[in-house]
């Protein structure tokens, strides 16, 4: 008999008096409508619960029931090509139940319970299984095989196995007897608490790059598979656009896209675009490898706080199958604000800017769940975490940006001035950094040759030099510079406009293979070297400029299709010929 009833209500926070049966972080149902909530504080007198839905209409005296388990998600086939809210409720099913507006207390199973999956069993009676090992597989989407794994906390001997065939997620496909002799019926799904990270066999160093096809990211500030990155930027600088580009083009197997406290129209755009976009590798829609978690800014704030954890748990689950997963979180600042909001309701002592003192530890916990690892199922998987940060007032010194910087190793700083000039991606090449160079360089050397590293270093050096020259130019104009310095400025302009700037709406330019990136750098640097030779002979730079080569190189990203890399040789030839004339 349950006599736990509501005592107080303040926004999304509900308190109970003299309830002693709850556990910390236990999931509960609140009120007659069974709103979902979570226990976030317990004293001998008061139990505090955050409710994941609007609390309008709740009354003191309404019942609260515990579920005896922490906030869980259901993991199994049907996660991909689906869209959930922050606590894994399927938004499509909710639409069928309650129409275009989300009403409260809707309950729907996160995954389709009636769909039959074509299951192939991978074990036979007598097999010994340990946690995380695969006992069945099924095609979840045409390109992704779902590998059904034993719950990481179970192990034992398989006693019975059903034949291959069609099963729903709750059908028993095998029976396992654990070491204590207890029988467990194995289905196609399992539960996992969202705030606990899933175990792996062994962590690995991130030594393979995540190829994004975005030049500035791949070349200047690469991220590893299993790495962590932050994209901070004020509004209008293109955080979301960058996240979309990454989700569309990066070479991860699975994409988990978390829209955390962002715009509703943006999510419907993602839905539209991803289902129309065809993955060039598999010729299937992008949605076949994507899961969306949409907790828009007007949806309940507590569920926004949970959405990040739901996302990372789904990501870890696919990593455990041996996939490379990339998770985009847009935006972690909204998540931090949700923490602040709830902390304020709990009347906790605020630290910096009203954020709770545990903000850094929560951020660290989250980013630590990324990584590349040997997984329990045998193979290798990774979770790459890319978090957008929306600094208040575009001020990077605010707590969320600063703390995120401590726990991520790639920093793609978006710049307002670049965005105003519509230079996209508006990643500032001076303030951004990647700490993965040492881990990734062997891969680049092996796959693209030593030159790639050399080109990259020369490009960064030129940009650095230009940046300091610009300080002078801003004061006295460029006319006073000697020709060799003017050349640096001209070459840097080609690098900035012709290389770093990339047009996401251009069919060829939206994704550029690494080999083309390398060739582009090669041609630009070739022109620079040749021009420098000429300038060194005291021939005026204006004569070099007159050939229009710099303008031509600026447009080569459009003029050379991704599958015609031979054309770069013509460019080199043209440079040699034209500039050769000057040397005669």
């Amino acid at each position, binding site marked *: 008999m349950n006599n736990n009833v509501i005592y107080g209500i303040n926004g999304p926070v509900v308190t109970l*008096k003299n309830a002693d049966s709850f556990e910390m972080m236990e999931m509960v149902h609140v009120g007659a409508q069974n709103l979902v909530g979570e226990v976030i504080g317990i004293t001998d007198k008061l139990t505090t619960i955050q409710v994941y839905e609007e609390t309008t209409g709740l009354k003191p005296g309404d019942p609260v029931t515990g579920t005896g388990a922490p906030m869980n998600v259901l993991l199994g086939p049907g996660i991909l090509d689906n869209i959930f809210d922050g606590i894994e409720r399927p938004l499509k099913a909710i*639409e069928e139940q309650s129409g275009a507006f989300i009403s409260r207390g809707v309950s729907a199973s996160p995954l389709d319970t009636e769909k039959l999956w074509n299951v192939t069993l991978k074990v036979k009676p007598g097999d010994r299984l340990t946690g995380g090992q695969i006992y069945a597989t099924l095609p979840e989407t045409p390109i992704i095989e779902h590998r059904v794994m034993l719950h990481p906390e179970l192990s034992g001997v398989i006693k019975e196995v059903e034949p291959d065939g069609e099963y729903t997620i709750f059908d028993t496909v095998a029976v396992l007897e654990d070491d204590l002799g207890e029988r467990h019926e194995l289905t196609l799904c399992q539960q996992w608490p969202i705030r606990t990270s899933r175990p792996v066999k062994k962590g690995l160093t991130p030594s393979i790059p995540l190829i994004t096809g975005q030049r500035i990211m791949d070349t200047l500030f690469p991220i590893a598979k299993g790495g962590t990155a932050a994209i901070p930027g004020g509004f*209008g600088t293109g955080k979301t656009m960058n996240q979309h580009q990454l989700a569309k083009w990066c070479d991860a197997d699975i994409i988990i896209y978390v829209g955390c406290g962002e715009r509703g129209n943006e999510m419907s*755009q993602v839905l539209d675009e991803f289902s129309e976009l065809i993955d060039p590798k598999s010729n299937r829609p992008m949605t076949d490898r994507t899961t969306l978690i949409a907790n828009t800014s007007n949806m309940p704030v507590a569920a926004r706080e949970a959405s990040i954890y739901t996302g990372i748990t789904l990501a870890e689950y696919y990593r455990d199958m041996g996939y490379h997963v990339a998770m985009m979180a847009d935006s972690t600042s*909204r998540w931090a604000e949700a923490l602040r909001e709830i902390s304020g309701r709990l009347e906790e002592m605020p630290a910096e800017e009203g954020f709770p003192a545990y903000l850094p530890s929560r951020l660290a916990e989250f980013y630590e769940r990324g990584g590349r690892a040997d997984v329990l199922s045998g193979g290798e998987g990774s979770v790459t975490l890319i978090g957008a940060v929306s600094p*208040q007032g575009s001020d990077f010194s605010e707590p969320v940006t600063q703390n995120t910087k401590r726990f991520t190793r790639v920093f793609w700083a978006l710049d307002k001035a670049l965005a105003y000039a519509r230079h996209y991606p508006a990643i500032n090449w001076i303030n951004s950094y990647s700490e993965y160079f040492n881990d990734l360089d062997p891969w680049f050397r092996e796959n693209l040759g030593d030159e790639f590293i050399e080109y990259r270093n020369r490009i960064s050096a030129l940009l650095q030099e230009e940046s300091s020259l610009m300080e002078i130019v801003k004061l006295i104009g*460029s006319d006073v510079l000697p020709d060799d310095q003017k050349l640096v400025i001209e070459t840097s302009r080609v690098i900035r406009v012709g290389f770093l700037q990339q047009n996401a709406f251009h069919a060829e330019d939206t994704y550029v293979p690494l080999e083309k990136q390398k060739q582009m750098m090669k041609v630009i640097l070739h022109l620079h070297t040749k021009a420098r030779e000429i300038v060194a002979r005291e021939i005026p730079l204006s004569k070099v400029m007159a050939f229009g080569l710099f303008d031509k190189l600026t447009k080569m990203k459009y003029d050379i299709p991704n599958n015609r890399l031979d054309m770069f040789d013509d460019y080199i030839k043209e440079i040699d010929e034209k500039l050769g004339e000057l040397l005669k």
Partner: protein
Amino acid sequence: MIIDYVGVKEINGSLIVMDGVKGVSNEEIVDIKLDNGSVRQGRVVQIEGERIVVQVFEGTRRISLKNTRTRLTGHPMEMPLSPEIIGRVLDGAGRPLDGLGDIFPVKRANINGTPINPVSRVYPKNYINTGISTIDTLMTLIRGQKLPIFSGSGMTHNDLAVQIVRQAKISGADSSNFGVVFAAMGVQKDVAEYFRRSFEESGVLSRVVMLLNLSNDPIIERTLTPRCALTIAEYLAFELDMHILVIMTDMTSYAEALREFSSSKGEIPGRKGYPGYLYSDLASLYERAGMIKGHTGSVTQIPILTMPNDDITHPIPDLTGYITEGQIVLDRALQGQGFYPPVSVLPSLSRLMKDGIGEGFTRGDHQSLANQLFASYAKVIDARALASVIGEEELSPVDKKYIEFGRLFETKFVNQGFTENRSIEQSLNLGWELLSTLPRSELDRVDDAVLDIYIKEKKEETPRLLRGISM
């Protein structure tokens, strides 16, 4: 059994605290009857056992610990809705002000609304032709979008809003299914009257619902005004399939009302004293724009906010910019030069623009033109910065061209006038005309094929000389 609770326990700002209240639900509306016969409304904002905190919309003036009788109404704040609401003038809490009697409700809706399921949204793609060059060309307004105007005190944002209402053509909308919901929050009487008169002159007054919470009206009522307005807008759009333009002015007053409420409730303040939930609160308003599947109507929002001290990093414009799909920023320096509308082009943006323009919507070259105008105008700003140091005379020839381009751009393109209504073709062609004053090699954001069509006259081209700063 209906119980009247006599007296209150505590009065603090606009909040009253009552004890011994039974059976109250969160967010419930209460009627507070004063001894002198006047009735006020309040909303339950916090419950602790039998102790409740009530926010009084009309303020707590003249309330004492003894002179009230409070009755629970049993329901949250609801707005009576009917098709007859069109053309009415209401107060900030949605009660008729025009003396035409109560609204006979066809239905009632909770003013807080419920979030639109992201799956049910239709991604907005149809553009609204406002007839204003800067907006149509560079920050196109899309049906179902929320595009705020960031302004400052004493600037011409009201004129701009009026001009948009007067000139806006929504494809598929005619006079029978186009409507305006106007929410005034803390604006002066004259401003409200200016809007009313302008609506009348442009012939839309009969299709306008006005909600007026003027600057001397109760502050707490102000926190309800946009919610009532959006409830009406959602009803008209999603049940009567109308295209509704919601103008909310001034969001800064709204946020200040929220701050006042929050501080009197004793909440922990966030930035600049605004409550920690300001983002979520603003989002719960702005996110009510959009279109949903199965309905032809739309809610488009143009919130207007005056940036305190013209500071775009102030929490109100900052958080707004993170929620809305772009912004139109007005610039005091442009206004000082006598330009109207004083739209500051570079920080302005429409996020939904890219999918609502181009072939089939406006014209195929629209995106290229917009990119190039933004890029070139950004260089103008750099050239001016350089000129202010070394003097215009010392600039390189290309930079001088930019200075000239900037002058033309501002006087011809930005500066349009209150009465001029330009078609999209006019605006686009004007844009190309201005760009053609620059050397062709400077137009690096546009494919040559497009340039060949729109940049007609091939001028004698000097080799591109080194320019000063470029972005």
